[in-house]
C-alpha cells in the first residue's frame, strides 16, 4: 500500500491545458500515473493529451470517476478551484499554487471541515507514490518504491532527502509535500497517522522548517500514537528572527519557532533528530536497520 494516492487512483488536472499542467501531467503519465482527464472552464468538449477536457470538476468526476485532483490554476483562482473539487466529491486535492492569499485558505479550510477529503498543499511540489501515482511537479526519477514514508514542508529539501536515501538504496512508500504556507490543507499529524496505518510503511522521515508549532505537535502525537520510528530535521538553524525565509510560513515569530527549539523538543519526544541536513539519509539508514 501507500498513503493518499495509489496505483488505482484516477487523477484529473484542474487548469489542465496550461503549460506547466501539461508538462507535468505528461511526465506523471509516463511514470505510471492514471490521468483520466482535466478541467479548463470554457474548453469543455475538447481533447488534450488524448484525454477529455471538461468545463467543471462536477462533470469530470461524473464522466471519469476521478478521485484525485491536481490543481495547477494560478493563486488568485486556486481557492475557488479547491472548493469546486471538494464539492464534487474528490477525495484527495493537491494544490501546487504558490502564493494563495492566506485568508483564502482560512475560508477553504472552513469549507473543507465537513468534507471527507484530504487537501495536500498549497505551495507544495505535490505527492508521489513511486511508479504508481504522482500528482505534482517533483522529478519522478529520483524516487523509487520502498518502505519509508517522507513528509516535508519544503519541496527541494524533500528532493535532497530522497536523493540521500536513494544513494543508500532506500525507497519510499509515499512522499508527501504538505507545503510552505502558514495555513495549509494537511498538517504533519494527519500524514503521520496515515503512515502509521499504512502496513507497508516501516518508518517516516519528517522534514520541517522554522515557524509555527506543527513539527512539535507532530512529535508529541507520534510519541503517544506511533509504533514506527520517525527521523526529523528542521531547516533554518541559521535563519534570523522576524524575517520571512521564502515560504510564507517560514518566519520565526517567537523563541518556540526557532529550528533549534523545535529540534530539542522533538528529540525529547523521541524523534531521531538530524542536526546536519547532509546526514538525513545516513541517519535514516542507521535508525531503520
Amino acid at each position, binding site marked *: 500500500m501507500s498513503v493518499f494516492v495509489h496505483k488505482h487512483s484516477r487523477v484529473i488536472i484542474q487548469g489542465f491545458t496550461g503549460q506547466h499542467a501539461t508538462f507535468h501531467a505528461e511526465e506523471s503519465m509516463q511514470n505510471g500515473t492514471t490521468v483520466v482527464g482535466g478541467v479548463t472552464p470554457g474548453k469543455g468538449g475538447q481533447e488534450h493529451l488524448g484525454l477529455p477536457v471538461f468545463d467543471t470538476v462536477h462533470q469530470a468526476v461524473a464522466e471519469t470517476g476521478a478521485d484525485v485532483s491536481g490543481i495547477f490554476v494560478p493563486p488568485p483562482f486556486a481557492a475557488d478551484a479547491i472548493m469546486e473539487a471538494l464539492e464534487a466529491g474528490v477525495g484527495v486535492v493537491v494544490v501546487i499554487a504558490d502564493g494563495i*492569499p492566506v485568508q483564502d485558505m482560512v*475560508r477553504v479550510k472552513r469549507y473543507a471541515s465537513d468534507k471527507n477529503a484530504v487537501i495536500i498543499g498549497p505551495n507544495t511540489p505535490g505527492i508521489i507514490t513511486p511508479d504508481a501515482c504522482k500528482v505534482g511537479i517533483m*522529478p519522478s526519477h529520483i524516487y523509487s518504491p520502498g518502505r519509508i514514508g517522507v513528509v516535508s514542508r519544503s519541496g*527541494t529539501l524533500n528532493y535532497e532527502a530522497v536523493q540521500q536515501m536513494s544513494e543508500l538504496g532506500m525507497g519510499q512508500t509515499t512522499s508527501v509535500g504538505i507545503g510552505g504556507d502558514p495555513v495549509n490543507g494537511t498538517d504533519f499529524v494527519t500524514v503521520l497517522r496515515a503512515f502509521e496505518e499504512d502496513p507497508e510503511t516501516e518508518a517516516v522521515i519528517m522534514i520541517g522548517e522554522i515557524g509555527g508549532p506543527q513539527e512539535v505537535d507532530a512529535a508529541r502525537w507520534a510519541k503517544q500514537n506511533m509504533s514506527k520510528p520517525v527521523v526529523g530535521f528542521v531547516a533554518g538553524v*541559521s*535563519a534570523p528572527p522576524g524575517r520571512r*525565509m521564502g515560504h510564507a510560513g517560514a518566519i520565526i515569530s517567537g523563541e518556540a519557532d526557532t529550528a533549534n527549539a523545535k529540534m530539542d523538543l522533538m528529540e525529547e519526544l523521541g524523534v531521531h533528530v538530524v542536526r546536519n*541536513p547532509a546526514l538525513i539519509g545516513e541517519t535514516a539508514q542507521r535508525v531503520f536497520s
Partner: protein
Amino acid sequence: MNIHEYQTKDLLRGYGVSVPDGRVTHNTDNAVTIAEDLGGDRWVVKAQIHAGGRGKGGGVKVASSLDEVRQFTDEMIGMQLVTPQTGTEGRLVQRVLVEQACDIKKEYYLGMVIDRATQRITMIASASGGMNIEEVAKTDPDRVIREAVDPAIGLAGFQCRKIAARIGLRGQKISEAAKLMQALYKCFREQDALLAEINPLAELGDGRLMALDAKMSFDSNSMYRRPMITELRDFDEEDAKEVEATAHGLNYIALDGNVGCIVNGAGLAMATMDSISFHGGKPANFLDVGGGASPEKVGNAFRIVLQDPNVKIILVNIFAGINRCDWIAEGLVQAMRDQDISVPIVVRLAGTNVEKGAPILEASGFPFIMADNLDDASTRVMATLEAAA
C-alpha cells in the same frame, strides 16, 4: 508587507476606529503648525519607522510646548533611530507624526492574527496594555485572552462582548469596545491583513476608548487585489538589495556572514545555510532563485549576492525539479563571462538534466569547484576559505 503607524491610523479611522487627532510631516515648521492647528497644550511627537520599540530609542516624546514640538521634531528627523528591532545601525527617520496628547486612565492590548494553531483569524486581548504581548503571554498567560473567528460567521457580537468583559471593561464601554473590535475585524478582512495590533488601546479620562498606537501588516500574496494598501509600501524601509531581488523574481535576505548562497527552493536554501553553519562557516545571505530559473535569473542572483562586500566565496546549490541543471549551468557560465567575479565559486548540481549541466561547466574553462553533494559542498567552501586565509 508593513506600513507606517500614521498610515495604519488613517486606515483604521476610515473604518470607524477612534484614533488621536494628528498629522504626519517631513519638516519642523510644519510640525509646529500641526500642533497649533490641533490645539491643546500637550502633544506627542512620534518617529515614523516600521520597527517597533521606538519609545526605548527616543523616537516617541511628549511635548508640553510648541518649542518642545520643534525641538523633538528637529532631533528626530534625520536621526538613525535604534530600537530593539532595528539592529545596531538603526533606521533613518524621515517623518514624524504629531498628535494631540491624551489623558490616559487605563491601557489595554487588542490584536488580531491568523493563528497557526486554529488556522483562523484570532482576536487577542489583554488588560496588560502598553507592554510586549509576547512577554505577557510568557509571564502571565492567564492575562492573554484569545478568541478564534469562524470564517463562515465572522466575528460575532457576543465574542466581542465576552472579550471586553474579560479584560475588565464595564457598562457602556463594553459595547463601545465591541464596535471597535468589529471595525478592526472588518478592516482586517477587507484589506487582507496578517496582523493588527492596537497597543495600547486606551481608556481616556473622559471615558472614550482610543487606539493610541496601531500597527498592521498585510499579505503580500493578496496585494494584487489591494491597490490601496500597495500604494502605502515604503521602499525606504526595505533593504535595497532585497527590493531589487524581488523585482527579478528572486527571494533574497541579507545576513552577516561571508559565504554567498544561491539555491533553489526556500527549504533547501535554509538547509544550505544550516550546512555551512554546521561546518563552522557563516552564510552571507538567503537566496532562493525559485522554479523556472533562467540563465538571466542566475546572472541577477550573482549580481545581487556580489553587491555585499563581505562575500568571499559563493556556494551554488541547485536541486532541479521544475528547474533544469543545464540552464543553471549556462547561467553560471554567462555570469562568469559578463561579470567581474573574483571570488571562488563552489557548485553542486543535482536533479533534472544534471548529466547535461556538469559538462557545460567543465567545457567553459572557468575554475568552478565542483561538489558531489551538500556535505561535500560545505566542506569545499570551508577548505577554500581556509586556503585563502
